[in-house]
């Protein structure tokens, strides 16, 4: 009797375990994804639902909701099902969704993330489908080159526009003239200025230069020198090239010799955030348009009693006088298993032409007018005495700007960046020499590239 009931009790437990695998067919299920009405384009008057995977900061905004209303009114046969994911876990969710065969029609990604998806074979080439919606991938985005095997897999949204931000009060207190608004400093000049305006003797330390613990702040100078050659001709890591060594040594000079930037151990220990620059304790920082979007124009969230200035980002002595930029392109892409590639590209086109511009970023799509973007930004920065001309020149309106890769994006890009950041701090704390650091990074990244090529 006891045995019988014991077995029954265990059966209930086991049945409940299995119940976790049974239930109603709700939205998001395969059934929903394969409704007949969604398998064809809107040409037959049938409604297509696009699953759009993007990061929270772009999908959760009021501007995006307004954009969706406009889009669905303009294209009544295309509905959008946005899937919003916090950036920190975006890759995990994207990989699980795509690897499981979930039908996703459009995904967002920065350069590293999209090349990771291309390398994993998740994406489809866009050139032919783009033609169908009136887009020429080789002409409509300026100087945008094919991604792999002569094909475009990415639909560009925007690229970073890097510049030098500076704190006018720190310069005034040190009696040092502001950087020229048009002619970039060389990195060596920047190091000298940073040293001059540093004042760490008082209660409130002022460092001449702020940096982020991101790769480009260490190897970016080298990328300018060798035109972003992060890979050798045979596709292996090129991080041990002399240009990158010189770049790392420059940062060491500023941080540890001139003491004009916070020591890296202190930086990490303090959990220093990239927006810490805006608390006023730093003279200069190299940053992109996001500093303006996130902090400089939002004084309610980042109140300050000092004015900011902007100037072109520093360049190597060999490139003196040239306007350079680290280019990293955010883009949209269509996964291979999308059944609505054409409609997805219509959404992508409207996204860059309508939403991106409306949300305060400059799209690379050349068929939209950008004047209003510059005017709005200049208006938001007028309290800092920043002019429309400066904004236009530095925020993407200079056709002569020289773009070089901001970071490695081709072979094993995630591993490249994370391995570099894991090891590079040991050079700045004196635990390793610069040669050992670069050699170690190269060895590990090469192994990751080889491993990836086998998959």
């Amino acid at each position, binding site marked *: *009797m*006891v*045995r*019988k*009931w*014991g077995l029954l*009790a*265990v059966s*209930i*437990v086991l049945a*409940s375990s299995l*119940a*976790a695998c*049974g*239930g*109603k*067919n*709700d*939205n*998001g*299920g*395969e*059934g*929903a994804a394969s409704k007949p009405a969604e398998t064809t384009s809107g040409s037959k008057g049938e409604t297509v639902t696009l699953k759009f995977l993007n*990061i*929270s*900061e772009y999908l*959760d905004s009021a501007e995006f909701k307004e954009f969706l209303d406009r889009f669905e009114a303009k294209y009544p046969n295309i509905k959008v*099902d946005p*899937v*919003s994911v*916090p*950036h*920190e*876990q975006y890759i*995990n969710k994207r990989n*699980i969704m795509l*690897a*499981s*065969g*979930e039908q996703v029609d459009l995904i967002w990604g*920065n350069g590293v993330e999209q090349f990771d998806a291309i390398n994993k074979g998740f994406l489809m080439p866009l050139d032919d489908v783009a033609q169908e919606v009136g887009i020429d991938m080789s002409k409509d985005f300026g100087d945008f080159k094919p991604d792999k095997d002569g094909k475009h897999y990415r639909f560009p949204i925007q690229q970073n526009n890097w510049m030098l931000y500076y704190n006018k009060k720190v310069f005034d207190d040190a009696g040092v003239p502001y950087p020229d608004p048009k002619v970039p400093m060389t990195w060596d000049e920047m190091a000298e200025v940073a040293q001059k305006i540093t004042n760490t003797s008082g*209660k*409130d330390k002022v460092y001449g230069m702020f940096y982020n613990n991101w790769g480009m702040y260490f190897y970016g100078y080298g990328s300018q020198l060798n035109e972003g050659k992060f890979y050798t001709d045979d596709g292996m890591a090129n991080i041990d090239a002399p240009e990158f060594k010189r770049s790392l040594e420059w940062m060491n000079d500023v941080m540890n010799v001139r003491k004009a930037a916070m020591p890296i151990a202190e930086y990490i220990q*303090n*959990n220093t*955030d*990239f*927006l810490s620059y*805006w*608390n006023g*304790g730093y003279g200069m920082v190299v940053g992109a348009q*996001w500093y303006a979007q*996130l*902090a400089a124009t939002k004084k*309610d*969230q*980042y*109140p*300050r009693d000092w004015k900011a200035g902007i100037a072109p980002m520093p360049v190597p002595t060999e490139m003196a006088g040239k306007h350079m930029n680290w280019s990293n392109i955010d883009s949209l892409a269509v996964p291979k298993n999308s059944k609505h590639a054409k409609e997805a590209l219509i959404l992508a086109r409207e996204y860059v032409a309508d939403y991106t511009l409306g949300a305060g970023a400059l799209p690379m799509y050349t068929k939209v007018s950008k004047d209003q973007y510059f005017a709005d930004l200049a208006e938001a920065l007028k309290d800092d005495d920043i002019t429309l001309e400066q904004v236009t020149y530095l925020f993407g309106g200079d056709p002569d700007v020289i773009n070089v890769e901001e970071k490695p994006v081709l072979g094993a890009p995630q591993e490249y960046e994370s391995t570099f950041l894991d090891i590079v701090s040991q050079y700045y704390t004196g635990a390793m020499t610069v040669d050992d650091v670069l050699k170690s990074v190269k060895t590990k990244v090469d192994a990751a590239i080889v491993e990836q090529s086998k998959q």
Partner: protein
Amino acid sequence: MTLRSIVYLLIGFVFITPLLWMVSTSLKYENQVFERPFVFIHLDNVNWSNYAHILTQTDFLTWLWNSLFVVLVSSCFRLLLAALGGYAFGYLRFRYSEAIFFCFLAALFIPYQLTLLPQFISFRFIGLLDTHWALILPNTIDILSIFLMRQFFLSFPKELIHAAYIEGSGIFRSFARVALPLARTPLLTLGLLSFFMIWDQYFQPLIFLHSKSLYTIPLGLQSFQTQFGKQYAMQMALACLAIIPVLGVFLALQKQFVESIVSSGLKG
């Protein structure tokens, strides 16, 4: 005595520091979060707007309701099944019960990440994806809870059940009328632990939910994150609000919880 008090105070301070930092940060502007030197609260310029933003500009109440729904439903089922499983494995015993229980335990050694993709595919196949049931159902079975209840029932006085049998109770009646009331203390402890564990779950809702209207609090917390960094002040304001129900549950059941731990209600 004084020295001991000081040591206890210091230890207490270490534990409460993150909570204090959370409250302090929630009342600051973003660019004050990592300021040096550290200021606990800028009394002349307290930033209440983080709370106002959370309560008026986000779906906080929806996230809160979702969390409560998932946690309460999951915990109730978990307790019921843990009690049933523990009773079966610990008291009733039956043929192959040890072997079956060993299989249950073996499942504990499979890393959760390894099961994520198959689980995602299964849920999609049967239509549970993007529903709260994708969070609730896996949470109803917790091997550790069954293990703990089994340990409790292993040392349970058999005479009490036998007495119930003699008085005419069947297996379920004796379980419900005798065993279950006596298991109140360990079940309460398990309930509290389950509440906290399920409340904190982040990865499962992240992967299995797509619609923002279904988000739970931990997912909502991550909303204040951009690809460049986090809005700590906003996150901490949300965390302060989100901690209220957890704190409420703990304070309400604190006495029983402590008693159950002290009296080793969960005998190993």
